[in-house]
């Protein structure tokens, strides 16, 4: 009886651990692909699904300073391998940076890239110019420059 209970607990714990691992690997998202999208702000960087990417000016030397609540609202663009440059994206500007938790974040022109939690659909740029966590957030041009409009 006790043995059955122990087995059940082990099975439950293993299932939860497996679910956590699968979720974690799913959130890493494989090799991140960057694309270019036309927007009212100009030609900007987006991910493979067309979701807008942003830059945070306080990040220095390609290293992110956005953690905690900041990373919850501005999730980093993560990759589990070498990021892929889609049409119009300069592969030479693509790079990666390791975050404190060991995850790998995609950079472009030395800027770590982020999503904004309110952007749910392709074409949305609701984070543009928002002053949060100490500085305004900007979309990025294909040249790797911040676009300070909108």
């Amino acid at each position, binding site marked *: 009886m006790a043995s059955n209970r122990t087995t059940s607990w082990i099975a439950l714990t293993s299932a939860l651990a497996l679910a956590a691992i699968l979720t974690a690997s799913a959130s890493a998202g494989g090799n991140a692909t960057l694309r270019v999208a036309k927007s009212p702000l100009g030609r900007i960087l987006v991910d493979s699904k067309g979701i807008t990417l942003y830059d945070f000016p306080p990040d220095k030397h390609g290293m992110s300073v956005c953690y905690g609540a900041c990373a919850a609202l501005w*999730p980093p663009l993560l990759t589990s391998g070498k990021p892929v440059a889609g049409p119009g994206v300069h592969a030479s500007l693509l790079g990666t940076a390791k975050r404190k938790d060991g995850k790998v974040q995609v950079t472009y022109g030395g800027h770590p890239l982020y999503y904004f939690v309110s952007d749910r659909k392709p074409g949305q740029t609701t984070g543009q110019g928002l002053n949060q966590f100490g500085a305004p957030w900007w979309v990025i041009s294909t040249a790797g420059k911040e676009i300070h409009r909108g």
Partner: protein
Amino acid sequence: MASAPTHATRIALRPLSVSPLETATRYLGAASILMVGGIHAQQYYDAYFNSVPTIGTLFLLSFVGAAIVGGVLIAPVRQLGTIGDLALAAAALGAIGIAVGTFVSLLISEYTPLFGFMESGYRLAVVLTLVFDVVTTVLLGAFLLFVGPRAIRSLR
């Protein structure tokens, strides 16, 4: 000359004697749910969660709800006698509902997006909220064991 209070009035308005344990669970539970609400308010106003659709609104509702139930738990509603017990029991149930709802939602959002939002690890605000959720549930659950039977009797 004022007429003497009826038997029913005396019962309804008589302040009840309560044990120190009941008093402790009530006020510590109230403080705990107010902490949960306070953290949500801080996240809403200071950590920019007011810009997050749905989740931001839920944070605000959690703060308002926690303030209401915490306020009732702290208010001198015992002066109302058995009616006060009903109010305290309802407030305790509401606080436990908020705490359990917050706890479950937080854990879900740690592993998968909830209303399009996913937490970024167990940051301080998350850990504190989870701790106060558990403390609230335990303390006010114990408090309900005291006040619940009296509240139910008053309904009969």
